[in-house]
């Protein structure tokens, strides 16, 4: 719960999303146009720093990270 909140707050404030009702934990960040391709890196770098974990190129290939929920799952897996 906490992870999702931190993550979605970061994305909301960094990508000028405001209180768009379409923005949910399950919304596809890229297909729905909330984040552009350059923003993807920003999110990953934030995640790595915030939770002190490394998201490797293999993680990116193996696990989908297109929604707040999906990214949170990967973070949880790394912290476990």
């Amino acid at each position: 719960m906490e992870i999702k909140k931190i993550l979605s707050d970061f994305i909301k404030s960094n990508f000028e999303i405001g209180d768009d009702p379409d923005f949910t934990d399950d919304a596809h960040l890229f297909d729905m146009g909330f984040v552009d391709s350059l923003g993807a890196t920003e999110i990953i770098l934030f995640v790595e720093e915030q939770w002190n974990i490394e998201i490797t190129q293999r993680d990116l290939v193996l696990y989908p990270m297109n929604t707040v929920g999906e990214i949170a799952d990967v973070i949880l897996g790394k912290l476990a």
Partner: protein
Amino acid sequence: MNSTIKLLDLAAKKFGNKIGYEDEWEEISFNELRKKAMIIGTKLVNQLSPDQLISPVIVYMPKNIKCIVSYMGIQYSGNPYVPVDSNIPLARLQKIIDNLNPGAIITDKDHIAKLEDIHLGKTIAYLYDDIVEGSIDNEVIESVVQKVIDTDPIYIMYTSGSTGEPKGVTISHRGVIDYANWVVETFGFDNNTIMANQAPFYFDNSIFEIYGCLVCGGKMVLIPEVLMMFPVKLPEFLEFHEINTIFWVPTVMINVANSGALSKHKLPLLKTVTFCGEIMPNKQLNIWRREHPDCLYANLYGPTEITDVCTYYIVDREFEDSDPLPIGKACKNTRIIVLNDNNQIAKIGEIGELCVIGTGLGLGYWGNKEATKKAFVQNPANPYYNELIYRTGDLAYIDQEGLIMILGRMDSQIKLRGNRIELGEIEKAAACIDGIKRTCAIFNLQKEEIVLFVETPKEFTLRKINMELLKYIPRYMLPHKLISLENFPHTANDKIDRVTLQKTYFE
């Protein structure tokens, strides 16, 4: 050699069971690739209507090895292949199908349902998993391939058209045969060469690797599409896959350089760093050169119409960050001329339009005589015999040393992250949205962003507009900024006043 597919026959003979291609799911040897492709070829020959002279076949799948198998299979049927983006807007796919009148379309389970909304006419839709199963009829394939001549089309790639209709650049077998051999000779590739492929297959930079590998017996490793969003992770990928050769679009090179990741991964195996598709700034190239001083760096240039590349420059000296990088000299079997405003050969240092002559010259735009006639014309400097040139629309000059320097465009076409975009196509698409009266797309050079102006009484957000635009144009064409106006400023003869828009909103 009459058909590019003979390169696969030769590769299978020479390199046999060596792995030639690898993606995130599988790898395939030259033998296996040939076998599967021949099955597809046999099926296509037997099922496509023989009354048609030539039946292009669309391949509509995400980037993976199956696409390469399909491209080769289609060549075994004697027909040209047409790669399209698996995320292509359906309206655009429909336009391509209407223009192309393809014999067949090869797709996968995830995409076949989308074709239900497409008017296919006589086009047969195949599932890859079905068409790749069956038997090979050597005789049939041999007789079909023998009939191919090297000026027949091998592929058709669609690029942005200013009228809103995509243009199908049609390329010949001999263009690709010549180019693939040139690539391998020039960079000294052999069967130890391992290339990390960045370019999408609907972008002709991928010809470098797909056919370069057939000639040298090297391996092409497809970078997973998702990783292209994370340039900071690409050096780690290169390290993991023991890559020694890359041919990337400058935007990716720039993003990797700016990410700082190059200093974290030493990449001792990396030997050849080549790039093409847009202007490469020395600022970021210098970061690469500092971190990896032993690599060979080469700047390649070429529009889709001339088989990927027509000039190259092997970086042989130091450059200041602010220096422009030459695009060098013409490739083998290619000649470059610069034509000035009077349609005469420009003097040294004089700016004009870069024009290309040579084996790689495309066959024109599929089913579009008008556009073909405009771009592929008789060389005005040659009154003696037929010699077609391709007018690139790029402004260039040749310096004292004979090196070609490129400056920009003569028209409103832009290059963004390596993608060629006609602003007119964005305007046409935006005009289809309900509630929008007029549209105007302008490129803000300083910020490197596309700004879309719309004349509308309604309230729109950029995200909502972009979601609508995705029905007509690919993602890479989406504007980065939206400005809604109730009324556009207009010139004396009632045209949209682009200059005023630019002045008011960019400065």
